[in-house]
């Protein structure tokens, strides 16, 4: 075995020497003077030729590699020595494969309709000796998985189809041969490239740098996993919500996606798996809307006193507007037992405690922690407990689950003026609170600035009728206009 090197005087000009392509492949037998490799320099292309006869045992450099003069590029040895590297020191007995004989192993055709098979797993590796009839691999057809047996015994010289590869029937997937030289001679006689892999039905990802790189790639997705897209295209795609991986190929150089490729495209619907929370929300609210006969009542409430109280107590009690509203709701629910009653098995069950659910939007979805005995809490305690409830809910810890009798949901902080909520079963009503907003009211011919808030009540008609809903809202409005009454908890 000898190494062939680049001539020392290959580059008098100190130009970058770049390995271009191989003119002789690994395993090929070359004669003195035969081209081995093409070396690129900025000013010339250099064809490096062999100074020895023999087989190329190994290629030591890859296309695109920067070389230096005198660098070894390949190993060459006697043609008969090729393949001795496999360590056949103790080759047992004669085999079926006569010297010089090569047996290709073909993808079997199992049935008239079979056109191709997938290599599931090889049970052998190159260099193994196999017996006739030995199971050497498992394949999968469009109908079933099956074992394939060796057609004859011998040494596995080369496996040319990888696991997972889809190969047409009657195509060689491996070869049995005594020596690699025999195999090379055979392949050459078949007119096949020596390093040829089994033709693949689906493209295989190249694992080595490809000698030929000049063909523009049509896929924007590169073997390396890098997505080819211009910076402008990336920005635009992000704005449009388009996943660039779903854009098949761009019109830029080498299939790169450029911004104009995205014109006229629409964001594809994305399938995201359902989280448990999302699934629960979907089931509960679908059931509610399908099974509870909802009706709705809306009332605009003067919030002048509420705002004054909020400003007054904010510092002292750390309360929010919503806390004041929850406090008022708790008292109204205490006052109107129907709003803590539930329809169960053709019965109406009245619950003793005023446990108010507070709807909290989290990153994962809507949750409703429950403030127990809300009517008994003074404002300071109510504010503290609510704050803790909400924080815990955002952190994924729910309190009072299943014990609520009535829910308050508030989108006022987002500027929503009014909205209708779906009842949170098994409760019978839910109050949707909008933003407190400033407007002008006319009172006895005078124009006055004031605050209002819109309350929308969703009610289960099986439990509560319209008049009762109206009375509830009126009572609530009254409580909100006397917020000082909310400071102490009910006895």
């Amino acid at each position: 075995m000898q190494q062939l090197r680049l001539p020392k005087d290959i580059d008098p000009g100190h130009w970058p020497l770049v390995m271009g392509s191989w003119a002789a492949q690994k395993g090929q037998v070359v004669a003195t003077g035969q081209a081995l490799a093409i070396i690129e320099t900025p000013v010339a292309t250099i064809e490096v030729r062999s100074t020895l006869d023999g087989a190329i045992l190994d290629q030591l450099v890859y296309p695109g590699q920067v070389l230096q003069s005198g660098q070894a590029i390949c190993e060459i040895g006697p043609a008969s020595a090729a393949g001795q590297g496999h360590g056949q020191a103790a080759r047992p007995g004669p085999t079926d494969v006569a010297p010089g004989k090569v047996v290709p192993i073909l993808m079997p055709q199992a049935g008239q309709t079979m056109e191709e098979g997938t290599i599931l797993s090889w049970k052998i590796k190159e260099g193994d000796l196999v017996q006739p009839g030995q199971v050497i691999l498992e394949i999968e057809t469009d109908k079933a998985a099956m074992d394939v047996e060796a057609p004859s015994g011998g040494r596995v010289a080369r496996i040319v189809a990888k696991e997972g590869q889809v190969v047409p029937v009657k195509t060689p997937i491996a070869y049995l041969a005594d020596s690699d030289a025999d195999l090379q001679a055979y392949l050459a006689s078949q007119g096949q490239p020596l390093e040829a892999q089994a033709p693949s039905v689906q493209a295989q990802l190249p694992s080595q740098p490809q000698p030929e790189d000049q063909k523009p790639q049509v896929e924007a997705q590169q073997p390396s996993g890098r997505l080819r897209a211009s910076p402008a295209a990336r920005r635009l795609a992000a704005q449009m919500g388009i996943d660039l991986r779903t854009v098949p190929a761009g019109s830029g150089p080498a299939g790169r996606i450029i911004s104009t490729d995205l014109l006229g495209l629409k964001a594809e619907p994305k399938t995201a798996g359902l989280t448990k929370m999302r699934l629960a929300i979907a089931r509960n609210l679908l059931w509610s809307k399908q099974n509870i006969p909802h009706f709705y009542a809306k009332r605009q409430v003067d919030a002048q006193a509420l705002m004054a109280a909020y400003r007054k107590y904010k510092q002292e009690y750390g309360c929010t507007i919503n806390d004041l509203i929850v406090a008022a709701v708790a008292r109204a629910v205490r006052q109107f037992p129907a709003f803590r009653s539930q329809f169960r098995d053709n019965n109406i069950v009245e619950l003793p405690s005023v446990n108010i659910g507070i709807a909290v939007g989290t990153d994962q979805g809507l949750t409703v922690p429950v403030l127990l005995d809300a009517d008994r809490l003074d404002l300071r305690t109510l504010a503290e407990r609510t704050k803790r409830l909400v924080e815990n809910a955002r952190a994924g810890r729910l309190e009072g689950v299943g014990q609520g009798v009535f829910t308050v949901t508030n989108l006022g902080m987002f500027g929503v003026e009014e909205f209708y909520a779906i009842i949170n079963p098994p409760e019978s009503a839910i109050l949707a609170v909008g933003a407190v907003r400033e407007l002008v009211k006319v009172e006895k011919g005078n124009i006055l600035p004031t605050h209002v808030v819109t309350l929308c009540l969703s009610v289960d008609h099986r439990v509560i009728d319209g008049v009762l809903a109206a009375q509830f809202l009126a009572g609530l409005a009254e409580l909100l206009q006397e917020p000082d009454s909310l400071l102490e908890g009910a006895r």
Partner: protein
Amino acid sequence: MEQVFDIAIIGSGPGGYVAGLKAGQLGAKVAVIEADLLGGTCLNRGCIPSKALLSSAELLHRIRTAKDLGVSVEGKVGFDWTAIQARKDRVLARLRSGIKGLFAARNVTLVLGKASLAGPGRLVVQTDGQTRTISAKKIIIASGSVPATIPGWPDDQHYVCTSDQALHWKDLPGKVLIVGGGVIGCEFACMLRGFGVDVTVVEMLSGLLPGMEPGLGRALAAVFAKRGIKVFLDTKVDELKIEDGIVRARLSNGQALEVDRVLVATGRRPNTAGLGLDRIGLDAEKGFVKVNDRMQTMVPDVYCIGDANGRCMLAHAASAQGICAVEDALGHGKDMRLPIPSAVYTFPQVASVGLTSIQAKQQGLPIKVGYFPIGHLGKAQASGEEEGFVLVIRHRQERTLLGVHIIGAHATELIGAAVALIGQDALADDLGRMVFAHPTIGEAVKEAAEDSLDQALHLPPRKLIRMLAEA
């Protein structure tokens, strides 16, 4: 009186003053402390003065070669060294006052004096024997570098000096030995030769401009040879002594030289010794302060930019790092990973950005190289600027532009286009398919990119040479 700043910056070179302006622009209360002249090495002892002198030298060179373009210059062509120096000094003064004006416009406080670190968030500044303390939430060290000298060599700066002195020489030597064939050595060689000085360059490594694409240094050496600049490569100065007002040097190749002055241009070392790094527990490696991609040092709230961190000893790198550090200090930091171009103001000029073929080799990247000789261009021939070439290095499979290397007229201006493209991960195809104005020297960049794709039109297919391998 003690003041508290959001950011205090030690040094007003291209790193420090730009950092100061950025901090001012972002509304921070910022102080820039300068021990010497505003603008640091770049403005006073580096980029700008050398370019001012080179412009005079290059004009002289153009006049001397005017007859190539059919222009005859009557009488004696000469120069007034004092006037050239005075013009240079005017340029520097104007630029310094420019920085002052920008500082004022952005509310940057300029503190004159020598700063040292006194503790976390505290600096002591000494001005004319007076000491004051400055407190700052964040500190940016931008103290730059000084030219390296060679221990054991005569220290009479009239005979053996660095670029610091050579840029302000009152007169020119008849013969000069330049030790070091890097950027500074080559620029001085070119400039001094332009003024008629007998120049010898000695470089320890095997090519001029070490670190850059080797073909550039080789081409520059050929130009130098034509101009009568003597270049010794793979050579060291074994001995140097001053005898009877003459410097005698013995080279490792056996050569003996007699020159009037020696310019040491062997590199620069960080200017961090007097800063009191140890007082805040900051380690330095050979004087360089280690930083991460956001210019943060190991000590919280202390940054280091420019030559002092040794990442890339170029003025524009320092400026970019300064902006990076200030943005991070004020809470909108991001890693700095942009390509930094280098520019050499010889004539012809040399400019580079991105990977060299040597770096590609070290990183094992498969590449393809495109080439275009500038002399093939219509514009080059028309304007008599035919020297040089462009090399474009691209990734062999992914086709991304990895490096662009230019030697030729206006190279330092041409590199900007390549910087913009490499900085956004463009492909060689992006450069190749763009329409460049004709006739321009810049067409060579486009053609070289096309050549890397085997698509250059103004270049015949490469000749094929057959060679036998060596066993």
